[in-house]
Protein backbone atom coordinates (compact mmCIF):
# COMPACT_ATOMS: atom_id res chain seq x y z
CA UNK A 1 0.00 0.00 0.00
CA UNK A 2 2.74 2.46 0.96
CA UNK A 3 4.76 1.57 -2.11
CA UNK A 4 1.80 2.45 -4.33
CA UNK A 5 1.34 5.70 -2.41
CA UNK A 6 5.03 6.50 -2.77
CA UNK A 7 5.02 5.77 -6.50
CA UNK A 8 1.91 7.87 -7.04
CA UNK A 9 3.16 10.74 -4.89
CA UNK A 10 6.49 10.97 -6.68
CA UNK A 11 4.75 10.80 -10.06
CA UNK A 12 2.45 13.62 -8.98
CA UNK A 13 5.36 15.87 -8.09
CA UNK A 14 7.39 14.96 -11.15
CA UNK A 15 4.83 16.65 -13.33
CA UNK A 16 4.76 20.46 -13.29
CA UNK A 17 1.02 20.19 -12.76
CA UNK A 18 1.18 19.67 -9.00
CA UNK A 19 3.59 22.54 -8.47
CA UNK A 20 1.56 24.90 -10.63
CA UNK A 21 -1.60 23.99 -8.74
CA UNK A 22 0.03 24.53 -5.34
CA UNK A 23 1.43 27.88 -6.38
CA UNK A 24 -1.68 29.23 -8.08
CA UNK A 25 -4.06 28.18 -5.32
CA UNK A 26 -1.76 29.77 -2.79
CA UNK A 27 -1.65 32.97 -4.84
CA UNK A 28 -5.41 33.11 -5.22
CA UNK A 29 -6.06 32.54 -1.53
CA UNK A 30 -3.36 34.97 -0.49
CA UNK A 31 -5.11 37.65 -2.52
CA UNK A 32 -8.44 36.83 -0.87
CA UNK A 33 -6.76 36.74 2.53
CA UNK A 34 -5.28 40.19 2.04
CA UNK A 35 -8.54 41.68 0.84
CA UNK A 36 -10.32 40.22 3.90
CA UNK A 37 -7.70 41.77 6.16
CA UNK A 38 -8.04 45.06 4.35
CA UNK A 39 -11.80 45.01 4.87
CA UNK A 40 -11.37 44.08 8.52
CA UNK A 41 -8.93 46.93 9.07
CA UNK A 42 -11.47 49.35 7.60
CA UNK A 43 -14.40 48.34 9.78
CA UNK A 44 -12.34 47.56 12.87
CA UNK A 45 -12.91 51.04 14.32
CA UNK A 46 -16.67 50.83 13.95
CA UNK A 47 -17.22 47.34 15.33
CA UNK A 48 -14.86 47.67 18.25
CA UNK A 49 -17.52 49.77 19.98
CA UNK A 50 -20.14 47.00 19.76
CA UNK A 51 -19.95 44.50 22.62
CA UNK A 52 -19.67 40.86 21.46
CA UNK A 53 -18.84 41.88 17.91
CA UNK A 54 -17.22 39.29 15.61
CA UNK A 55 -13.43 39.23 15.84
CA UNK A 56 -10.67 38.58 13.38
CA UNK A 57 -11.31 34.83 13.40
CA UNK A 58 -14.91 35.24 12.26
CA UNK A 59 -14.27 38.02 9.80
CA UNK A 60 -10.99 36.93 8.21
CA UNK A 61 -10.20 33.30 8.89
CA UNK A 62 -13.65 31.75 8.47
CA UNK A 63 -14.27 33.43 5.09
CA UNK A 64 -10.76 32.48 3.99
CA UNK A 65 -11.31 28.81 4.79
CA UNK A 66 -14.69 28.97 3.12
CA UNK A 67 -13.05 30.35 -0.03
CA UNK A 68 -10.32 27.74 0.22
CA UNK A 69 -12.98 25.02 0.25
CA UNK A 70 -14.51 26.38 -2.95
CA UNK A 71 -11.17 26.74 -4.71
CA UNK A 72 -10.17 23.20 -3.72
CA UNK A 73 -13.51 21.93 -4.98
CA UNK A 74 -12.65 23.39 -8.34
CA UNK A 75 -9.06 22.11 -8.60
CA UNK A 76 -9.47 18.72 -6.91
CA UNK A 77 -11.03 17.12 -10.01
CA UNK A 78 -8.01 18.11 -12.09
CA UNK A 79 -5.61 16.44 -9.69
CA UNK A 80 -7.59 13.27 -9.11
CA UNK A 81 -8.55 12.81 -12.76
CA UNK A 82 -5.20 11.15 -13.38
CA UNK A 83 -5.61 8.49 -10.72
CA UNK A 84 -6.92 5.65 -12.87
CA UNK A 85 -7.96 7.23 -16.16
CA UNK A 86 -4.34 8.01 -16.95
CA UNK A 87 -3.28 4.46 -16.15
CA UNK A 88 -6.00 3.09 -18.41
CA UNK A 89 -4.89 5.37 -21.22
CA UNK A 90 -1.21 4.54 -20.72
CA UNK A 91 -1.93 0.82 -20.39
CA UNK A 92 0.15 0.93 -17.22
CA UNK A 93 -2.40 -0.57 -14.85
CA UNK A 94 -1.17 -4.16 -15.44
CA UNK A 95 2.00 -3.18 -13.59
CA UNK A 96 0.01 -2.73 -10.40
CA UNK A 97 -2.43 -5.54 -11.08
CA UNK A 98 0.23 -8.20 -11.65
CA UNK A 99 2.26 -7.04 -8.66
CA UNK A 100 1.47 -8.89 -5.42
CA UNK A 101 -1.08 -6.30 -4.31
CA UNK A 102 -4.80 -6.54 -3.67
CA UNK A 103 -7.24 -4.15 -5.31
CA UNK A 104 -7.84 -2.43 -1.97
CA UNK A 105 -4.12 -1.84 -1.49
CA UNK A 106 -3.89 -0.22 -4.91
CA UNK A 107 -6.90 2.00 -4.25
CA UNK A 108 -5.84 3.00 -0.72
CA UNK A 109 -2.29 3.60 -1.88
CA UNK A 110 -3.48 6.02 -4.55
CA UNK A 111 -5.90 7.61 -2.11
CA UNK A 112 -3.15 8.25 0.41
CA UNK A 113 -0.92 9.80 -2.24
CA UNK A 114 -3.56 12.23 -3.48
CA UNK A 115 -4.68 13.00 0.05
CA UNK A 116 -1.03 13.71 0.90
CA UNK A 117 -0.89 16.27 -1.87
CA UNK A 118 -3.96 18.08 -0.55
CA UNK A 119 -2.74 17.95 3.04
CA UNK A 120 0.39 19.72 1.86
CA UNK A 121 -1.80 22.32 0.23
CA UNK A 122 -3.79 22.71 3.45
CA UNK A 123 -0.61 23.18 5.49
CA UNK A 124 0.34 26.02 3.16
CA UNK A 125 -3.14 27.51 3.48
CA UNK A 126 -3.08 27.22 7.28
CA UNK A 127 0.12 29.26 7.40
CA UNK A 128 -1.81 32.36 6.35
CA UNK A 129 -4.24 32.53 9.31
CA UNK A 130 -1.45 31.43 11.64
CA UNK A 131 0.61 34.41 10.53
CA UNK A 132 -2.03 36.63 12.14
CA UNK A 133 -0.86 35.44 15.57
CA UNK A 134 1.99 37.91 15.18
CA UNK A 135 -0.37 40.87 15.33
CA UNK A 136 -3.59 39.71 16.91
CA UNK A 137 -5.19 37.15 19.14
CA UNK A 138 -7.04 34.50 17.16
CA UNK A 139 -9.38 31.73 18.19
CA UNK A 140 -7.14 28.71 17.61
CA UNK A 141 -9.95 26.32 18.44
CA UNK A 142 -12.20 27.69 15.76
CA UNK A 143 -9.31 27.66 13.33
CA UNK A 144 -8.55 24.01 14.05
CA UNK A 145 -12.22 23.08 13.74
CA UNK A 146 -12.21 24.78 10.34
CA UNK A 147 -9.04 22.96 9.33
CA UNK A 148 -10.51 19.62 10.39
CA UNK A 149 -13.48 20.50 8.23
CA UNK A 150 -11.23 21.26 5.27
CA UNK A 151 -9.30 18.00 5.72
CA UNK A 152 -12.52 16.00 5.77
CA UNK A 153 -13.79 17.93 2.79
CA UNK A 154 -10.74 17.29 0.59
CA UNK A 155 -10.71 13.66 1.74
CA UNK A 156 -14.22 13.41 0.30
CA UNK A 157 -13.23 15.26 -2.89
CA UNK A 158 -10.35 12.84 -3.45
CA UNK A 159 -12.45 9.74 -2.77
CA UNK A 160 -15.11 10.86 -5.25
CA UNK A 161 -12.47 11.94 -7.78
CA UNK A 162 -10.63 8.62 -7.66
CA UNK A 163 -13.84 6.67 -8.14
CA UNK A 164 -14.96 8.69 -11.14
CA UNK A 165 -11.45 8.46 -12.57
CA UNK A 166 -11.68 4.66 -12.47
CA UNK A 167 -14.81 4.76 -14.65
CA UNK A 168 -13.25 6.22 -17.76
CA UNK A 169 -10.13 6.17 -19.89
CA UNK A 170 -10.21 9.92 -20.56
CA UNK A 171 -8.78 11.98 -17.68
CA UNK A 172 -10.67 15.08 -18.78
CA UNK A 173 -14.02 13.27 -18.66
CA UNK A 174 -13.15 12.11 -15.16
CA UNK A 175 -12.38 15.71 -14.18
CA UNK A 176 -15.62 17.06 -15.57
CA UNK A 177 -17.67 14.30 -13.96
CA UNK A 178 -15.98 14.85 -10.61
CA UNK A 179 -16.50 18.59 -10.80
CA UNK A 180 -20.18 18.21 -11.64
CA UNK A 181 -20.76 15.71 -8.84
CA UNK A 182 -18.96 17.80 -6.23
CA UNK A 183 -20.58 21.00 -7.37
CA UNK A 184 -24.01 19.39 -7.31
CA UNK A 185 -23.40 18.13 -3.78
CA UNK A 186 -22.25 21.62 -2.86
CA UNK A 187 -25.30 23.50 -4.11
CA UNK A 188 -27.89 20.81 -3.42
CA UNK A 189 -28.42 22.75 -0.21
CA UNK A 190 -30.17 25.53 -2.12
CA UNK A 191 -32.91 23.21 -3.26
CA UNK A 192 -33.22 21.86 0.24
CA UNK A 193 -33.55 25.35 1.69
CA UNK A 194 -36.63 26.00 -0.42
CA UNK A 195 -38.35 22.83 0.77
CA UNK A 196 -41.18 23.59 3.16
CA UNK A 197 -40.48 23.19 6.84
CA UNK A 198 -41.36 19.87 8.44
CA UNK A 199 -40.40 17.79 5.43
CA UNK A 200 -37.53 15.35 5.82
CA UNK A 201 -34.64 17.37 4.49
CA UNK A 202 -32.68 14.58 2.80
CA UNK A 203 -31.33 16.81 0.06
CA UNK A 204 -29.85 19.04 2.73
CA UNK A 205 -28.33 16.04 4.42
CA UNK A 206 -26.46 15.16 1.22
CA UNK A 207 -24.96 18.61 0.96
CA UNK A 208 -21.23 18.88 1.51
CA UNK A 209 -21.62 22.56 2.29
CA UNK A 210 -24.26 21.87 4.91
CA UNK A 211 -21.87 19.61 6.79
CA UNK A 212 -18.91 21.91 6.36
CA UNK A 213 -20.44 25.18 7.59
CA UNK A 214 -20.90 24.09 11.25
CA UNK A 215 -17.25 23.00 11.38
CA UNK A 216 -16.22 26.36 10.02
CA UNK A 217 -18.16 28.05 12.81
CA UNK A 218 -16.25 25.91 15.29
CA UNK A 219 -19.00 23.40 15.95
CA UNK A 220 -17.76 19.80 15.69
CA UNK A 221 -20.62 17.31 15.71
CA UNK A 222 -20.42 13.58 15.18
CA UNK A 223 -23.15 13.78 12.49
CA UNK A 224 -20.95 15.89 10.25
CA UNK A 225 -17.82 13.84 10.94
CA UNK A 226 -19.58 10.57 10.20
CA UNK A 227 -21.07 12.03 7.02
CA UNK A 228 -17.62 12.76 5.63
CA UNK A 229 -16.20 9.42 6.76
CA UNK A 230 -19.14 7.57 5.20
CA UNK A 231 -18.75 9.58 2.01
CA UNK A 232 -15.09 8.57 1.69
CA UNK A 233 -15.68 4.92 2.58
CA UNK A 234 -18.52 4.55 0.07
CA UNK A 235 -16.50 5.95 -2.82
CA UNK A 236 -13.36 3.98 -1.94
CA UNK A 237 -15.36 0.74 -1.75
CA UNK A 238 -16.96 1.54 -5.09
CA UNK A 239 -13.49 2.07 -6.57
CA UNK A 240 -12.22 -1.26 -5.24
CA UNK A 241 -15.27 -3.00 -6.66
CA UNK A 242 -14.75 -1.24 -9.95
CA UNK A 243 -11.14 -2.42 -10.12
CA UNK A 244 -12.16 -6.00 -9.39
CA UNK A 245 -14.94 -5.81 -11.93
CA UNK A 246 -12.47 -4.74 -14.62
CA UNK A 247 -10.88 -8.17 -14.33
CA UNK A 248 -14.21 -9.91 -14.77
CA UNK A 249 -15.72 -7.86 -17.59
Amino acid at each position, binding site marked *: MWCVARLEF*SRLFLSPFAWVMLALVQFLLAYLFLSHIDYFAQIQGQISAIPGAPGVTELVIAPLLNNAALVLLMIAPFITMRAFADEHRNHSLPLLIS*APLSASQIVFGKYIAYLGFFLLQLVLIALMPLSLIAGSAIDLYQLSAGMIGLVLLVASFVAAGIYLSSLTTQPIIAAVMTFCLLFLLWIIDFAAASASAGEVNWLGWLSLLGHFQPLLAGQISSVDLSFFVLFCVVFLLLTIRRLDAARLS
Partner: protein
Amino acid sequence: MTILLEAQNLSRFFGPNIAVQNIDITVKRGEILGFLGPNGAGKSTTMKMLSGNLAPDNGEIRINGFDLLTQPKQAKAQLGYLPENPPLYRELTVGEYLKHCARLNRLKGKALKSAVDTVIDRCGLGEVQRRLIGQLSKGYQQRTGIAQAIVHSPAVVILDEPTSGLDPVQIRQIRELIREIANEHSVILSTHILPEVEMLCDRVQIISKGQVIFADSLAALHQQRLSSRLRISFANPPPIAEIQSLEHVASVEVLSSQQFRILYHPENDPTESLLIQAVSKQWQLQELVREQDSLEDIFMQLINFDTAAVETIN
Protein backbone atom coordinates in the same frame (compact mmCIF):
# COMPACT_ATOMS: atom_id res chain seq x y z
CA MET B 1 11.60 -31.14 -13.60
CA THR B 2 9.36 -28.96 -11.49
CA ILE B 3 6.30 -27.53 -13.10
CA LEU B 4 6.24 -23.81 -12.40
CA LEU B 5 3.09 -22.80 -14.14
CA GLU B 6 0.10 -24.97 -14.76
CA ALA B 7 -3.16 -23.85 -16.28
CA GLN B 8 -6.03 -26.17 -16.94
CA ASN B 9 -9.16 -25.80 -18.96
CA LEU B 10 -8.91 -22.06 -19.32
CA SER B 11 -11.91 -20.53 -21.00
CA ARG B 12 -12.91 -16.98 -21.45
CA PHE B 13 -15.95 -15.51 -23.17
CA PHE B 14 -16.64 -11.93 -24.09
CA GLY B 15 -20.40 -11.92 -24.21
CA PRO B 16 -21.36 -14.57 -26.76
CA ASN B 17 -17.88 -14.55 -28.34
CA ILE B 18 -15.45 -17.23 -27.33
CA ALA B 19 -12.03 -15.68 -26.86
CA VAL B 20 -10.28 -18.72 -25.45
CA GLN B 21 -11.60 -22.22 -24.94
CA ASN B 22 -10.22 -25.10 -22.87
CA ILE B 23 -6.57 -24.22 -23.05
CA ASP B 24 -4.07 -26.21 -20.99
CA ILE B 25 -0.61 -24.82 -20.39
CA THR B 26 2.30 -26.21 -18.42
CA VAL B 27 5.73 -24.69 -18.12
CA LYS B 28 8.64 -26.39 -16.44
CA ARG B 29 11.65 -24.78 -14.83
CA GLY B 30 14.10 -23.26 -17.28
CA GLU B 31 11.87 -23.76 -20.28
CA ILE B 32 10.74 -21.29 -22.92
CA LEU B 33 7.23 -21.96 -24.09
CA GLY B 34 6.27 -20.31 -27.34
CA PHE B 35 2.68 -19.29 -27.65
CA LEU B 36 2.06 -18.91 -31.32
CA GLY B 37 -0.94 -17.80 -33.24
CA PRO B 38 -2.25 -15.31 -35.76
CA ASN B 39 -3.50 -11.97 -34.56
CA GLY B 40 -6.79 -12.25 -32.75
CA ALA B 41 -6.33 -15.91 -31.91
CA GLY B 42 -6.58 -15.30 -28.16
CA LYS B 43 -2.89 -15.03 -27.28
CA SER B 44 -3.14 -11.80 -25.37
CA THR B 45 -6.32 -12.89 -23.62
CA THR B 46 -4.52 -16.00 -22.41
CA MET B 47 -1.52 -13.97 -21.28
CA LYS B 48 -3.80 -11.60 -19.40
CA MET B 49 -5.46 -14.49 -17.66
CA LEU B 50 -2.14 -16.05 -16.70
CA SER B 51 -0.95 -12.76 -15.25
CA GLY B 52 -4.11 -12.15 -13.22
CA ASN B 53 -5.27 -9.17 -15.26
CA LEU B 54 -8.33 -10.97 -16.50
CA ALA B 55 -10.34 -13.53 -14.59
CA PRO B 56 -11.01 -16.74 -16.53
CA ASP B 57 -14.60 -17.90 -16.79
CA ASN B 58 -13.46 -21.48 -16.33
CA GLY B 59 -10.39 -23.35 -15.29
CA GLU B 60 -7.58 -22.87 -12.83
CA ILE B 61 -4.08 -21.45 -12.88
CA ARG B 62 -1.32 -22.46 -10.49
CA ILE B 63 1.96 -20.60 -10.36
CA ASN B 64 4.73 -22.36 -8.45
CA GLY B 65 2.08 -24.18 -6.45
CA PHE B 66 -0.07 -21.16 -5.62
CA ASP B 67 -3.53 -20.84 -7.08
CA LEU B 68 -3.83 -17.51 -8.87
CA LEU B 69 -7.51 -17.18 -8.06
CA THR B 70 -7.54 -18.12 -4.38
CA GLN B 71 -4.04 -17.01 -3.34
CA PRO B 72 -3.44 -14.15 -5.77
CA LYS B 73 -0.74 -12.38 -3.75
CA GLN B 74 1.54 -15.38 -3.32
CA ALA B 75 1.00 -16.40 -6.94
CA LYS B 76 1.66 -12.93 -8.32
CA ALA B 77 4.88 -12.66 -6.31
CA GLN B 78 6.18 -15.52 -8.49
CA LEU B 79 5.21 -13.79 -11.69
CA GLY B 80 6.70 -11.21 -14.00
CA TYR B 81 4.52 -9.86 -16.78
CA LEU B 82 5.23 -7.69 -19.77
CA PRO B 83 1.95 -6.83 -21.51
CA GLU B 84 1.66 -5.98 -25.18
CA ASN B 85 1.99 -2.29 -24.32
CA PRO B 86 4.79 -2.00 -21.77
CA PRO B 87 3.38 -0.47 -18.56
CA LEU B 88 5.79 2.44 -18.29
CA TYR B 89 5.52 5.81 -16.60
CA ARG B 90 6.97 8.29 -19.04
CA GLU B 91 7.78 10.93 -16.44
CA LEU B 92 10.11 8.67 -14.41
CA THR B 93 13.71 7.86 -15.21
CA VAL B 94 14.59 4.24 -15.90
CA GLY B 95 16.34 3.88 -12.53
CA GLU B 96 13.46 5.40 -10.56
CA TYR B 97 10.92 3.35 -12.41
CA LEU B 98 12.70 0.07 -11.73
CA LYS B 99 13.12 0.99 -8.07
CA HIS B 100 9.40 1.56 -7.78
CA CYS B 101 8.68 -1.72 -9.56
CA ALA B 102 10.97 -3.55 -7.15
CA ARG B 103 9.20 -1.88 -4.24
CA LEU B 104 5.82 -2.93 -5.59
CA ASN B 105 7.16 -6.46 -5.52
CA ARG B 106 8.12 -6.25 -1.86
CA LEU B 107 11.86 -5.69 -2.20
CA LYS B 108 13.47 -3.46 0.39
CA GLY B 109 16.80 -1.90 1.34
CA LYS B 110 19.91 -3.60 0.08
CA ALA B 111 18.04 -6.35 -1.72
CA LEU B 112 16.17 -3.68 -3.66
CA LYS B 113 19.30 -1.83 -4.67
CA SER B 114 21.18 -4.93 -5.76
CA ALA B 115 18.14 -6.25 -7.65
CA VAL B 116 17.78 -2.98 -9.54
CA ASP B 117 21.51 -2.80 -10.30
CA THR B 118 21.55 -6.39 -11.53
CA VAL B 119 18.55 -5.94 -13.77
CA ILE B 120 19.90 -2.68 -15.24
CA ASP B 121 23.10 -4.52 -16.01
CA ARG B 122 21.40 -7.58 -17.48
CA CYS B 123 19.09 -5.61 -19.70
CA GLY B 124 21.86 -3.27 -20.87
CA LEU B 125 20.17 -0.17 -19.48
CA GLY B 126 23.28 1.26 -17.82
CA GLU B 127 23.66 4.14 -20.25
CA VAL B 128 20.08 5.28 -20.05
CA GLN B 129 19.24 4.72 -16.40
CA ARG B 130 19.16 8.44 -15.68
CA ARG B 131 17.05 9.33 -18.69
CA LEU B 132 13.31 9.78 -18.76
CA ILE B 133 11.45 6.77 -20.08
CA GLY B 134 9.34 9.01 -22.33
CA GLN B 135 12.45 10.07 -24.24
CA LEU B 136 13.82 6.59 -24.87
CA SER B 137 13.62 4.75 -28.17
CA LYS B 138 11.11 1.94 -28.54
CA GLY B 139 13.84 -0.67 -28.12
CA TYR B 140 15.01 0.74 -24.81
CA GLN B 141 11.43 1.13 -23.64
CA GLN B 142 10.83 -2.51 -24.44
CA ARG B 143 13.95 -3.46 -22.51
CA THR B 144 12.78 -1.40 -19.57
CA GLY B 145 9.50 -3.28 -19.78
CA ILE B 146 11.36 -6.59 -19.69
CA ALA B 147 13.54 -5.35 -16.81
CA GLN B 148 10.36 -4.53 -14.93
CA ALA B 149 9.13 -8.09 -15.41
CA ILE B 150 12.29 -9.75 -14.08
CA VAL B 151 13.45 -7.31 -11.39
CA HIS B 152 12.06 -9.42 -8.55
CA SER B 153 13.44 -12.71 -10.00
CA PRO B 154 10.06 -14.32 -10.50
CA ALA B 155 9.71 -18.02 -11.21
CA VAL B 156 7.71 -17.40 -14.37
CA VAL B 157 8.11 -14.55 -16.82
CA ILE B 158 5.25 -13.87 -19.24
CA LEU B 159 6.17 -11.80 -22.28
CA ASP B 160 3.40 -10.75 -24.63
CA GLU B 161 4.83 -10.02 -28.09
CA PRO B 162 8.10 -8.61 -26.76
CA THR B 163 9.58 -7.89 -30.18
CA SER B 164 6.63 -6.24 -31.88
CA GLY B 165 7.38 -2.85 -33.38
CA LEU B 166 11.16 -3.11 -33.11
CA ASP B 167 13.79 -2.90 -35.83
CA PRO B 168 15.82 -6.02 -36.76
CA VAL B 169 18.83 -5.09 -34.61
CA GLN B 170 16.68 -4.45 -31.59
CA ILE B 171 14.77 -7.67 -32.21
CA ARG B 172 18.03 -9.58 -32.17
CA GLN B 173 19.11 -7.92 -28.92
CA ILE B 174 15.80 -8.60 -27.24
CA ARG B 175 15.94 -12.24 -28.34
CA GLU B 176 19.39 -12.61 -26.82
CA LEU B 177 18.07 -11.07 -23.64
CA ILE B 178 15.14 -13.47 -23.55
CA ARG B 179 17.43 -16.44 -24.04
CA GLU B 180 19.54 -15.21 -21.16
CA ILE B 181 16.50 -14.76 -18.95
CA ALA B 182 15.50 -18.35 -19.62
CA ASN B 183 18.63 -19.56 -17.87
CA GLU B 184 17.11 -18.58 -14.56
CA HIS B 185 13.40 -18.19 -15.14
CA SER B 186 10.74 -20.02 -17.05
CA VAL B 187 9.44 -17.94 -19.89
CA ILE B 188 6.14 -17.89 -21.71
CA LEU B 189 6.48 -15.97 -24.92
CA SER B 190 3.61 -15.05 -27.16
CA THR B 191 4.30 -14.06 -30.70
CA HIS B 192 3.02 -14.27 -34.24
CA ILE B 193 6.52 -14.43 -35.68
CA LEU B 194 7.43 -18.01 -36.51
CA PRO B 195 11.23 -17.82 -36.78
CA GLU B 196 11.25 -16.28 -33.34
CA VAL B 197 9.68 -19.38 -31.89
CA GLU B 198 12.12 -21.51 -33.84
CA MET B 199 15.08 -19.60 -32.48
CA LEU B 200 14.02 -19.28 -28.88
CA CYS B 201 11.55 -21.85 -27.72
CA ASP B 202 11.81 -25.35 -26.32
CA ARG B 203 8.15 -26.06 -26.69
CA VAL B 204 5.42 -24.63 -28.85
CA GLN B 205 1.71 -24.23 -28.48
CA ILE B 206 -0.07 -23.08 -31.57
CA ILE B 207 -3.40 -21.47 -30.96
CA SER B 208 -6.07 -20.52 -33.42
CA LYS B 209 -9.51 -19.13 -32.73
CA GLY B 210 -9.09 -19.64 -29.02
CA GLN B 211 -8.14 -23.30 -29.21
CA VAL B 212 -4.83 -25.10 -29.04
CA ILE B 213 -4.21 -26.89 -32.31
CA PHE B 214 -0.64 -28.02 -31.72
CA ALA B 215 1.27 -28.50 -28.49
CA ASP B 216 4.60 -30.28 -28.49
CA SER B 217 8.34 -29.76 -28.40
CA LEU B 218 10.05 -27.83 -31.14
CA ALA B 219 11.75 -31.05 -32.22
CA ALA B 220 8.36 -32.60 -32.91
CA LEU B 221 7.44 -29.59 -34.94
CA HIS B 222 10.64 -30.06 -36.96
CA GLN B 223 9.78 -33.72 -37.39
CA GLN B 224 6.52 -32.69 -38.91
CA ARG B 225 8.37 -30.36 -41.21
CA LEU B 226 10.56 -33.09 -42.69
CA SER B 227 8.61 -34.10 -45.68
CA SER B 228 9.17 -36.67 -48.32
CA ARG B 229 10.27 -34.59 -51.25
CA LEU B 230 13.52 -34.31 -53.19
CA ARG B 231 14.33 -31.69 -55.75
CA ILE B 232 16.86 -33.02 -58.19
CA SER B 233 18.40 -31.77 -61.41
CA PHE B 234 20.61 -33.41 -64.01
CA ALA B 235 22.67 -31.89 -66.84
CA ASN B 236 21.92 -34.97 -68.87
CA PRO B 237 18.48 -36.11 -67.71
CA PRO B 238 17.11 -39.56 -68.44
CA PRO B 239 13.54 -40.10 -69.68
CA ILE B 240 11.10 -39.50 -66.92
CA ALA B 241 9.84 -43.08 -67.01
CA GLU B 242 13.27 -44.29 -66.03
CA ILE B 243 13.29 -42.24 -62.82
CA GLN B 244 9.74 -43.28 -62.20
CA SER B 245 10.69 -46.92 -62.33
CA LEU B 246 13.37 -46.59 -59.66
CA GLU B 247 12.84 -48.31 -56.36
CA HIS B 248 10.93 -46.34 -53.64
CA VAL B 249 10.04 -43.46 -55.94
CA ALA B 250 6.34 -42.78 -55.55
CA SER B 251 5.94 -40.18 -58.26
CA VAL B 252 7.91 -37.67 -60.26
CA GLU B 253 6.95 -34.15 -61.10
CA VAL B 254 8.70 -32.33 -63.95
CA LEU B 255 9.75 -28.81 -62.95
CA SER B 256 11.76 -28.02 -66.08
CA SER B 257 13.57 -30.03 -68.74
CA GLN B 258 16.38 -30.77 -66.28
CA GLN B 259 14.75 -30.41 -62.91
CA PHE B 260 12.42 -32.87 -61.21
CA ARG B 261 10.62 -33.21 -57.94
CA ILE B 262 10.54 -36.74 -56.53
CA LEU B 263 7.98 -37.77 -53.98
CA TYR B 264 8.50 -40.82 -51.79
CA HIS B 265 7.19 -42.46 -48.63
CA PRO B 266 9.08 -41.21 -45.60
CA GLU B 267 10.07 -44.73 -44.49
CA ASN B 268 11.62 -45.64 -47.89
CA ASP B 269 14.23 -43.12 -48.87
CA PRO B 270 15.28 -43.46 -52.53
CA THR B 271 18.25 -41.06 -52.31
CA GLU B 272 20.83 -43.83 -52.09
CA SER B 273 19.68 -45.78 -55.14
CA LEU B 274 19.06 -42.58 -57.04
CA LEU B 275 22.67 -41.51 -56.52
CA ILE B 276 24.05 -44.89 -57.59
CA GLN B 277 21.94 -44.84 -60.74
CA ALA B 278 22.88 -41.27 -61.54
CA VAL B 279 26.60 -42.01 -61.29
CA SER B 280 26.54 -45.28 -63.17
CA LYS B 281 24.34 -43.98 -66.00
CA GLN B 282 26.08 -40.59 -66.19
CA TRP B 283 23.02 -38.39 -65.72
CA GLN B 284 25.41 -35.72 -64.38
CA LEU B 285 23.79 -34.82 -61.12
CA GLN B 286 23.82 -31.07 -60.44
CA GLU B 287 21.53 -30.55 -57.51
CA LEU B 288 19.92 -32.70 -54.85
CA VAL B 289 17.87 -30.91 -52.24
CA ARG B 290 15.62 -32.30 -49.55
CA GLU B 291 12.66 -30.00 -49.55
CA GLN B 292 11.36 -28.90 -46.16
CA ASP B 293 8.03 -27.44 -45.34
CA SER B 294 8.62 -24.01 -43.95
CA LEU B 295 7.20 -23.34 -40.53
CA GLU B 296 4.76 -21.04 -42.27
CA ASP B 297 3.47 -23.95 -44.33
CA ILE B 298 2.92 -26.07 -41.25
CA PHE B 299 1.30 -23.17 -39.51
CA MET B 300 -1.07 -22.60 -42.38
CA GLN B 301 -1.74 -26.32 -42.71
CA LEU B 302 -2.57 -26.62 -39.03
CA ILE B 303 -4.81 -23.60 -39.07
CA ASN B 304 -6.53 -24.58 -42.29
CA PHE B 305 -6.90 -28.13 -41.09
CA ASP B 306 -8.46 -26.86 -37.93
CA THR B 307 -10.83 -24.55 -39.76
CA ALA B 308 -11.77 -27.36 -42.15
CA ALA B 309 -12.40 -29.71 -39.25
CA VAL B 310 -14.62 -27.17 -37.56
CA GLU B 311 -16.51 -26.63 -40.79
CA THR B 312 -17.10 -30.36 -41.26
CA ILE B 313 -18.48 -30.61 -37.75
CA ASN B 314 -20.83 -27.77 -38.45
